[in-house]
């Protein structure tokens, strides 16, 4: 039973993980993540990598939208910037993988900061439209320049890390998941710093934040930059994962996917971004598994495929109606239940 935590120092109070129970669970999670590739089939490994990429990008969007309160529908475009940077560097110059990923992140960061400039003047839906425009511009650039391969896009050789050729989901897992975990830790730590708290202050009331001495434009641009950096790295991982990048790889609907992921997961919570991305990626697949388990063979697949989409949509609506704070809040309530049990349940 654990009914409270007792802290004696400020350091303990501000710790990223504040209790022994949490440490134990994180340890178990780490062991599971390490053991997973050795027991999972190729299909589940593929999904794990895809989920990790989506988690990285959602977390980036969560920094911008969830923590800083700036709506963006350009996350897929920034992912595209990262993916193209990586593909060009890899295909043309064969530069090292980690350098390519960083370069992808920084190019997307610059793109994000440029798009973020109007954020001082416009907010909400207006900013959403600005970011949509960014995705159209990015699509145009991808489709019309020879360096990006035009509409055909770019194909690339598998990446190499420490001499290993990353050409299977198993090998890619050891790149994608650690990078995502690092990015998650980075994001979680960000909100223990001055910068992260400034983001939250801007989200809660930007005028008050400015009165407190937070330079709005600087921090808003920083938020855009960080968010796009996450998207860029996620896009780079995406490029290594699929090894083909085309202008149609990053449609507007992908940005909506990430926005939906952080809304369903819980905005302004790192765990929310993770849970949302897992939910959005996995639920359609789980629904497919359920359809497959029903007797009826391929005819049933044809019949139930559209029904599956309806159920997926209904699930999202259901979550938003019954738990607007998202899956992260459900998780918090579950934790609270166990903290207080057996005194209150």
């Amino acid at each position, binding site marked *: 039973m654990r009914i409270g935590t007792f802290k004696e120092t400020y350091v303990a109070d501000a710790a990223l993980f504040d209790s022994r129970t949490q440490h134990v669970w994180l340890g178990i999670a780490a062991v599971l993540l390490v053991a997973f590739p050795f*027991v*999972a*089939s*190729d*299909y*589940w*490994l*593929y*999904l794990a990598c*895809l989920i990790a990429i989506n988690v990285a990008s959602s977390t980036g969007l969560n920094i911008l939208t969830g923590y800083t309160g700036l709506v963006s529908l350009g996350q897929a475009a920034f992912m595209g910037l990262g993916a193209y940077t990586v593909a060009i560097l890899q295909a043309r110059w064969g530069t090292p993988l980690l350098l390519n990923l960083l370069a992808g992140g920084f190019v997307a960061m610059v793109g994000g900061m440029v798009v973020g400039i109007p954020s001082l003047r416009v907010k909400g839906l207006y900013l959403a439209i600005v970011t949509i425009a960014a995705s159209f511009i990015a699509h145009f650039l991808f*489709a019309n320049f020879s360096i990006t391969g*035009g*509409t*055909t*896009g770019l*194909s690339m050789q*598998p990446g190499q890390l420490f001499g290993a050729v990353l*050409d*299977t*989901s198993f090998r890619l897992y050891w790149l994608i998941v650690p990078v995502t975990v690092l990015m998650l830790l980075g994001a979680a730590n960000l909100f223990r710093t001055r910068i992260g708290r400034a983001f939250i202050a801007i989200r809660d009331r930007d005028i008050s934040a400015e009165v407190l001495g937070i330079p709005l434009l600087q921090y808003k641009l920083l938020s855009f930059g960080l968010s796009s950096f996450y998207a860029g790295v996620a896009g780079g991982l995406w490029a290594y994962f*699929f*090894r*083909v990048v*085309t*202008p*149609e*790889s990053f449609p507007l609907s992908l940005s909506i996917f990430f926005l939906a992921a952080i809304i369903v997961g819980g905005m302004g919570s790192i765990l929310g971004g993770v849970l949302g991305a897992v939910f959005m990626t996995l639920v*359609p*697949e789980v629904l*497919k*598994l359920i359809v497959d388990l029903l007797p009826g063979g*391929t005819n049933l*697949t*044809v019949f139930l*495929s*559209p029904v*599956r*989409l309806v159920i997926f949509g209904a699930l999202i609506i259901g979550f938003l109606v019954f738990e607007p704070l998202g899956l992260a809040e459900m998780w918090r309530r579950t934790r609270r239940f166990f903290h207080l049990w057996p005194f209150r349940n």
Partner: protein
Amino acid sequence: MAQQRISTRRRSIMLTAAAAGAAALTQPLSVLAQGADEIVIGGSIPMTGVFAFAGVGINAGIQDYVKIVNDAGGIKGRKVKYVPEDTGYKVDVSVAAFKKITSQNKVNLYYGDSTGFAKTINPELDRNGSILMAGASFATELNDPKKYPHQFLVGPDYTEMFGILLNHIAKEKPGAKVAFVYSDSEFGRDPIDSSEALAKKLGLSVPVKIMTPAGSVDVSTEVIKLRRAAPDYTIFHGYILAPIPEFITQGKQQGMQSKWMGTFWTMDSSTVMKMGPDGEGFMGVMPYRYYYDTEKAPMLEKIRAMRPEYQSTAYTQGFLAAMLFLESAKRTLEANKPLTGDNLKSALNSIKDFDTGGLIGVPITISGNSIPVGRVYRADMKAQKMVAASDWIKL
């Protein structure tokens, strides 16, 4: 006591769920269930999403041919199993389906749903080395046996489709002016540059090339541009239906005398008939016979006996893909070779003057990655049918 029973039940439910989860993760069950001698066709099929209209037909076509083969005893005594998955026409979902199907079955043949998927999965096919793949895409890029050694197209590629149309035009009206109208997508832009060069080679001129957003509605400015160029023929590519009817209607209202043409995905009978009276005379390239064609075609008769209602050209495409898949498997097994990607592909490339049972009107030869043959059909709105406007054209 009651509390304890409930918690025991809960625990057993959780244990069962955990066991089911572990089984789902490793998923060897269905592989064990698979007969050792089965030939497996996997499929990333778009049964939902923007391409569902074709996916449902493709799925039925593959299913029917597999049934015909299994009813006749299979391939050299081996039964054929078809395992489709819905993809919603999304590349990542398609790849997930591929991974799922290949990790649960020993797949020999695979049907993919898009150019993006074909390109994305190609390294995996090369690495895996045991699968031959075809798909719904006719992208010119895929028609390269060196780059895509384990894939093929179930018909001519988009450039070859243009080639068939341009050859027909050059014969019908030498020196004609041909306009290209295409969508701003990979699909739309695919054959444009190479076809412009071919048109010039055939003595035709291309006075205007117009690119529009895919599925755009307001095309009035583009129609004015087209009218100024006064083409004898206008070829649409990269669309299914919109904005083609709008172009034709406005073009006719403005007195244009052009003949209007389309490529495969526009040319299904049900799609063309949606153009209404202005679609009269709409022409285009079709690599297969239509469901209702009256010329001798025993396989079409078989299809009509199985399915009395109209079947789309996407159905024929799926059906023919399965036929070529299993012909390749048959030839490989007859040569006492294992069913590897390389063996299946060389068996496919050994196909010479092959009779498709009338699905394609002439015997076919597959020397590379495509079947460069097709015919020009024309819409007869009164009869609500597509009728042949040319003989079969081989490139």
